[in-house]
């Protein structure tokens, strides 16, 4: 190769415009905050929300495929066929391939990524709205770093969602994790919070190490770090089987840590419990979307050839998570801790969809199975944001409202929010007409279709165990006398959003079709 041929080709920045926008805005907010003296950080809050809104608009209007899909969903296919080309032309959006790579295939932009990012912005915006009043009421927490760190974490998740290279995966994971460590310790005078941050950091660093070690072995076995190239090398059978096997084990362990499934779940209860509730709300919602995305990117896109190996591992992790999560949750008196164990069990249930993609070399059911997991994770994030948001809604200055007993008699204090919380609990327990039922149903049908009847029976057994502790929250709210009678002081926007969140859980439970097909369609176009 001569020097003349080695010219620099500038990367196509179009697919990453949302990321660039978000990064610039995060830096801008950081600087603005230096010069604006505002105890309430109103400017940072507003700018952060506008940034997320802007990123959402950029994501929609730079992606011809997402735009046409959204038009088709809202206006129907006939109108879409007519309107979409005109819109796309008017806005000057390049109609690229279904899957666009950039930065020399480090980065990928596809429909699954677009959809997950859209959900991500929505979740983070919701999180910020729910957290606002809580942060203002506590002096030591009212720092604008909460907003910038959240933005950096969001950027990390966007990188994870769009990673097509193991190093990109790692950069995204680290950007997210480091922001989260700092967020957990945001209230530096709180002993439980610093303890939680310390535990999170030590275990998180260990998991990152496992992840990196696995990546290096995959590199050793296949000679590449690029996910699509890894898949090609594996298809052609050029990989060293032993090293590959070890690499997969380490990789799965690292991913399992990020998902928080047994036996890599130790950090979840402590961090959820110890972290300030707005941070718990954040950790418990959006990162699940990103973790799902990297599982799909790394295991499905990259390592589908050795699916038998990682499916067997995920199967064990899934069953253990459902068992440990559900049984341990029964014993909890703290709602945050209970929801932490419930998160473990939910992630276990979600993994069932990934376990059943390829059966005996037959990938017929893969799309059905993976899209059921995607539906599960999206609806779980929505419900989880709602439940932690409810804790924030009921908390006041000097009162955390994070014990289950703090919800006693909520029905007397506010019948509407008791009803919303009840919907969330029944949704998590998987009772119709709430969306959690269809999430469980879609995963179960994938499991049964793949022929794992015993697994489906085990899954419903653990769901039955799980129903007990969700019912207990409903019992406390409805059957017990109120512990205190103070009216709910949360600001109007949090109340409205909480109501909308609850209605979404109910309405998606009555009309799940759209979201289900969105998941299936986006995976069909991305795998």
């Amino acid at each position: 190769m001569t020097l003349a041929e080695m010219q620099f080709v500038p990367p196509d920045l179009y697919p990453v415009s949302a990321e660039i926008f978000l990064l610039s805005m995060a830096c801008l907010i950081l600087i603005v905050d230096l010069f604006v003296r505002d105890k309430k950080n109103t400017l940072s809050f507003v700018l952060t929300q506008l940034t997320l809104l802007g990123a959402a608009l950029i994501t929609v209007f730079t992606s011809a495929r997402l735009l046409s899909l959204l038009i088709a969903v809202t206006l129907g296919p006939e109108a879409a066929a007519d309107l979409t080309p005109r819109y796309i032309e008017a806005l000057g959006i390049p109609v690229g391939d279904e899957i666009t790579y950039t930065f020399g295939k480090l980065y990928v932009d596809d429909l699954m990524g677009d959809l997950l990012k859209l959900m991500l912005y929505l979740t983070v915006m919701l999180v910020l709205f729910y957290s606002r009043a809580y942060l203002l009421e506590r002096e030591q927490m009212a720092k604008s770093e909460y907003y910038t760190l959240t933005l950096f974490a969001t950027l990390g998740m966007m990188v994870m969602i769009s990673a097509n290279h193991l190093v990109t995966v790692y950069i995204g994971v680290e950007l997210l994790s480091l922001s989260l460590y700092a967020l957990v310790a945001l209230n530096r005078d709180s002993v439980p919070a610093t303890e939680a941050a310390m535990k999170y950091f030590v275990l998180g660093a260990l998991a990152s190490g496992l992840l990196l070690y696995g990546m290096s072995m995959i590199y050793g076995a296949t000679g590449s770090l690029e996910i699509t190239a890894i898949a090609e090398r594996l298809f052609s059978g050029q990989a060293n089987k032993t090293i590959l096997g070890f690499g997969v084990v380490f990789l799965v362990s690292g991913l399992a840590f990020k998902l928080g499934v047994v036996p890599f779940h130790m950090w979840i209860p402590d961090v959820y419990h110890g972290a300030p509730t707005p941070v718990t709300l954040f950790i418990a919602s959006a990162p699940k979307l990103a973790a799902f995305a990297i599982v799909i990117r790394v295991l499905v896109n990259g390592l589908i050839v050795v699916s038998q190996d990682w499916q067997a591992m995920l199967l064990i992790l899934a069953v253990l998570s459902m068992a440990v999560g559900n049984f341990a949750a029964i014993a909890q008196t703290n709602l945050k801790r209970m929801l932490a164990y419930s998160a473990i069990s939910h992630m276990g249930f979600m993994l069932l969809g990934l376990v059943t993609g390829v059966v005996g070399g037959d990938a017929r059911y893969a799309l059905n199975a993976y899209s059921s997991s995607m539906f599960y994770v999206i609806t779980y994030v929505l419900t989880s944001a709602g439940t932690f948001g409810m804790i924030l809604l009921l908390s006041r200055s000097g009162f955390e409202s994070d014990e289950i007993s703090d919800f006693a008699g909520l029905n007397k204090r506010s019948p509407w929010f008791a009803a919303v919380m009840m919907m969330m609990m029944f949704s998590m327990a998987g009772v119709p007409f709430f969306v959690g039922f269809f999430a469980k149903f879609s995963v179960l049908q994938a499991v049964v279709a793949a022929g794992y009847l015993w697994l489906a029976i085990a899954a419903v057994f653990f769901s039955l165990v799980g129903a007990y502790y969700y019912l207990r929250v409903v019992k406390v709210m409805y059957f017990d006398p109120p512990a205190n009678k103070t009216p709910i002081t949360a600001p109007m926007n949090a109340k409205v959003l909480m109501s909308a969140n609850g209605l979404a859980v109910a309405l998606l439970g009555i009309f799940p079709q759209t979201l289900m097909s969105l998941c299936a369609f986006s995976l069909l176009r991305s795998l």
Partner: protein
Amino acid sequence: MSGLPLLSLAIWVPIIAGLVVLATGSDRNSPLARMLALLGAIFGLLVTLPLYTGFDMTTPAMQFVELSPWIPRFNINYHLGVDGISMFFVILNSFITVIVVLAGWKVINNKVAQYNAAFLIMSGLLNGIFASLDGMLFYIFFEASLIPLYLIIGVWGGPRRVYAAFKFFLFTLLGSLLFLISLIYLFVQSGGSFSILDWHQLPLAMVPQMWIFLAFLVAFAVKVPMWPVHTWLPDAHVEAPTGGSIVLAAIALKLGAYGFLRFSLPIAPDASHELSGLIVGLSLIAIVYIGLVALVQEDMKKLVAYSSIAHMGFVTLGFFMFSALGLEGALVQMISHGFIAGAMFYCIGVMYDRVHSRQIVDYGGVVNTMPKFAAFFMLFAMANAGLPATSGFVGEFMVILAAVKFNFWVAFAAASTMIVGAAYTLWMYKRVIFGAVANHHVAELTDISAREFLVLALLATGALGMGLYPQPFTEVMHSSVNELLRHIAVSKIL
């Protein structure tokens, strides 16, 4: 037949009425909440009446069918329809809802709007169960109906309400989750259909049939309830408020039995024949053993709860003898039990509201202070014991007749209920109503009000009318029952 979507109305009118009642909010508006609830319940009953008048008795096919796609991703349809088997339950349920709203009129003064809304919403969901022809739709209504009843028991129930509510919810959930797996299995086996009618035609080998039958059995046996998974029922009945007990006995118990007819028998006919001995045995245990258990109860509600289990034993016995007489007898028994058990619980509720005790020993000589009430209670006690000319007699007699043809000893055991049933009911009646006035509580009793009279009269009309002239009920069932029997006589094993 009118062009209105009658079944959708039967489902959604009560649910929407319930949401409207809920919107009235706090107890300051309770008179308004009661009025709206009553109007909603009556309107809900009125929209179901054309189901009977417009019913075509000559065909076993589904009628008033509504079909539109709901979740095309999994081929789940909003598919409704009734035949001669299910039609009466929709009407009975809507009727009982009116009774329940009236029964809670004066008694419930705490969270009135939520109480009435829970019953109205549950009524809509129960109608949905009886009208569903799509397996998943059935399941969704089936499981969603647990939520209102859980709240009704837990919020307005007695001292051990929390225990009873949890036991009720978790027991039934256990059954229904296995049911869900079977539904998904059938969905996969049938190549992607959730239509119950498609499943009726689906050929299945013996082993899967057995598993499906057993999974269905767990789900429905808990609901019926059959011995030995009946233990949640006495707890739930004792702790539930009167209205809750009425709905539980009159409608909720019928869901399990209805499930046998809609799912177990037609989908797994060979397994049903194979395992009929098991069901007959369990039914006889329920009839004889649970009847004896009822005899020794000291709590009136518990006594009636056990008698309900014994009566439901007749229903499952009638199903699994595979004769038209037995099946129709069982169906008549289901409807009649709806009137009688509902009325028995209401009678106990009337006394409980005045004395706040359900123990038999706290009563005695009630007839001296409440003569009108005693007369009604006498009628229902006799009906519960299966006295001729009441509806209780018709169903039991038909099932016993069928049993004589089936096997003499089965009939012998089943017929013993005529003695045991009379013993526990009438003995209780004697101790509570007759004799000298036992204590000052009884002496201070006031006789039933006009509202209570109306409720008892409505239920008495049902129990007596069906006993004296059962034909309008049975003639509607004929063709559907015969079709079902023809269907299950044919093996599905290929």
